[in-house]
């Protein structure tokens, strides 16, 4: 009959526990406010910096940012609108002044790649500026030789003076 005593004890414990749970729940229910809490002033530090969206202008060009139209709708959304954070929204620098539509092409140096196309084939690159310490025709020619330039033609003018004998081939 020992087992019956054990079972009885277990039952008592369970009953006590259940009763306690009911009491706790009732106690909490009594604490529950009957009305919904009013919207508070927001004070926590988790908000992003917020700045109002700039006013839209005239005819709308395509928007590159996904819209958040779902958030403005009165109907709950079934698929989520993009959740976008307001990061990088408080720059101390102001935007650059707006440019006017250009009236002339924007000039870019012809040798934009830093290569002196007076020399070599159109896709070789004799530097416009040689690395530090490489100077004079001899210095430049030995640098070019060390970098695998052979039979370097003067395709334009010999502006760097690499074709002392004037035969149309530099550094020979």
């Amino acid at each position, binding site marked *: 009959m020992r087992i019956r005593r054990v079972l009885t004890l277990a039952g008592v414990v369970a009953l006590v526990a259940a009763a306690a749970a009911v009491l706790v729940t009732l106690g909490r*229910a009594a604490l529950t406010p009957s009305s919904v*809490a009013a919207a508070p002033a927001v004070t926590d530090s*988790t908000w992003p910096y*917020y700045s109002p969206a700039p006013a839209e202008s005239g005819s709308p060009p395509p928007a590159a940012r996904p819209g958040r139209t779902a958030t403005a709708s009165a109907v*709950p*959304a079934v698929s*989520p609108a993009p*959740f976008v954070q307001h990061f990088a929204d408080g720059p101390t620098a102001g935007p650059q002044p707006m440019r006017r539509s250009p009236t002339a092409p*924007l000039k870019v140096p012809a040798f934009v790649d830093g290569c002196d196309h007076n020399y070599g084939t159109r896709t070789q690159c004799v530097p416009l500026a040689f690395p530090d310490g490489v100077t004079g025709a001899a210095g430049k020619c030995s640098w070019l030789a060390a970098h695998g330039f052979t039979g370097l033609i003067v395709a334009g003018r010999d502006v760097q003076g690499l074709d002392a004998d004037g035969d149309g081939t530099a550094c020979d």
Partner: protein
Amino acid sequence: MSSGGTVLIAYRNRPWLSRADRGRIAQALILVLIAATAAVVPAGAARASANLIANPGLEGLDPTGFPVCWERSGWGDQSFTFGLASPGHTGANAIRVTLTTSPNGDRKAMMLENPSCAPNVTPGHRYDLSAWYTTTTANTVMTMFRHDVAQGWVYWTDLATLPVTSTWTRKTVRTPEVPAGTDQIVWGVTIYGVGTLQTDDYEMNDATQPAPEQSCSAGDACTRGVWQVLPFNSPVRAIHAVVLKNGNVLLVAGSGNDPDAFAAGTFTTAVYRPETGTFSNVPTPADLFCSGHVQLADGRVLIMGGNKDYPAADGSHGYKGLKNSYVFDPATGSYSRVNDMTAGSWYPSATIMGNGDVIALGGLGEDSSGTVATQYFKTSESRWLSLNEANQTWNFWGLYPSMILMQDGRLFYTGSHVFGNGLPGTGSSIYDYDANTITPVGGLQNKDQRDQSMSVLLPPAQDQKVLTIGGGNIDSNPDANRLTDLIDLKRADPAYTAGPPLPTGTLTGGVPQTSTQGKMYVSAVLLPDGKVFETGGGLHNRADPVYEASMYDPATNTFTPGLATDPVPRTYHSSAFLLPDGRVMSVGDNPGNGSFDMRLSIYSPPYLFHGARPQILHISENEWAYGSTHTITVDDPILRAELIRPGAVTHSSDPNQRFVDLPMSVNGDTIGLNLTSNPNIAPPGWYMLFVVGTNGVPSVARWVHVG
């Protein structure tokens, strides 16, 4: 109570009791007590392990009637209410947040950011966060903040969207590894659209898995990785490289900076198949040398501009840009033409936006002047808009300007560019296409020597940090530098700060670099373990290769130097990119003497020598909508999962390269992968899905389509 009851009934039916039975009865009694305890503590805490949340069931209330340790949080101009719903999921209370209008902003019940309420965490650990909820709107997100010992409370990351449900549902998401310098976190569920969200029974458990014993028997490769030069050459000058959605690699030469090919009108492209080591040639309709390229949302590749002419020897004209544009389709292996751009584009940038459209900036026009148009490809109409259909700033952005899409849809010009000086001013900026503004960003070091540096959006994209590495200047031709610059685009007023110096390597003949020598023509590749592999480069304008490779860890902001170096020089017109098998491929080298190195190299990072690779056994589907969860099964526990956008790189420029973390809902070997709701974090397209095992070894990628 039910489990205890079942146990009791089971024992009553037994006729006879042994000593062992009495032991079982004692166990049953303990079960009953546990069940009773659970009834007294209605926290929904099924687990016995410690729930780290204070007042998780929201039952304890403060004098205002709001749950202790919780606060009403959020911002914006909504009409909203915070209140308690009764009963809750369990117990008397749940928190109910209702938005009746929601023009902007968000609202959330958050754990209080104070030492007694915010859960303590350990750096390097991961935690399973869960909450029970109902919601009438899908505009919800689990958001975390962390307490940084230096910065105070800062945003950490978003974890998952909670789909609409009217019955109490539980969502569990595992955090990424807690960053160093973090001692507490708080989190909650945000609602940012009209509707009602109820939450209850929050739980947070340490889910850190012990790292298995690292075993590596590959010697040097364990720490440095290994390079292999392939036994065959590229059939084309691989100046442009695009990893395709089928795992093949598009290698575009056009004329390939080869004057004979240009004169003959011989333009080339090849598709390389890594799995078989074979190539196929692709008829190439124009000189796509110097073009821009980007994967479209459907995995086809938009190619824009190219080389209309090389400069004249007498300087009467410079390089000229083509207006032509093509779409390469991996399925057919062919180009098809779309309408012309509004301006010639030689060295244009191309960035895909969150809506799937493409913005191209910079480059040289048909008359070799600077292209100042913003060129906008509207994907839905498969055409370039006319000049006045797109917003115009008339700003000249230079050549291959690195324009990285930010999480709010603006473009960050990193200051990384090709040729000469940086742009006037600070050398970097934020371009807002919609508002048509350009706002300077400060802090970039030596902005006029960042020519052919490389910028990457660091893993994960959610962290919104960019690293810019090295650079030089082809005009003044100084030694390329060791500068690195880091920017956190989450800051209200972001500015670059100096990063650790790039490690030094050796020059031709094994000559060590001096302490001031770095490199331009650098390649930086996002790896599936969340690190950045940086390789290749040179010291001067089309000269003096630098043999150096290192691993940058965004979590620690450090470079691990001394990785194995590519035996092939990789200077001008070289690129490196991630293959879907987790290795890195490196192509191209075009020194000033006009030669071109056709060798191909493959790098196996150290992680490939540290044990078995986890297997993605099954994916529920490969079409992934924003804000959705997709189930995979894996063969072993995994540390993280992510999407990596396949490379589309040239001239150290791939502004679309990104690594998108997929917060995991872990249930044994079945893992829910939660995709961001924000397309600016993961622009539409095909991505490589990787998982990383607890041994730090990544899987082979599976392809999924986002958007």
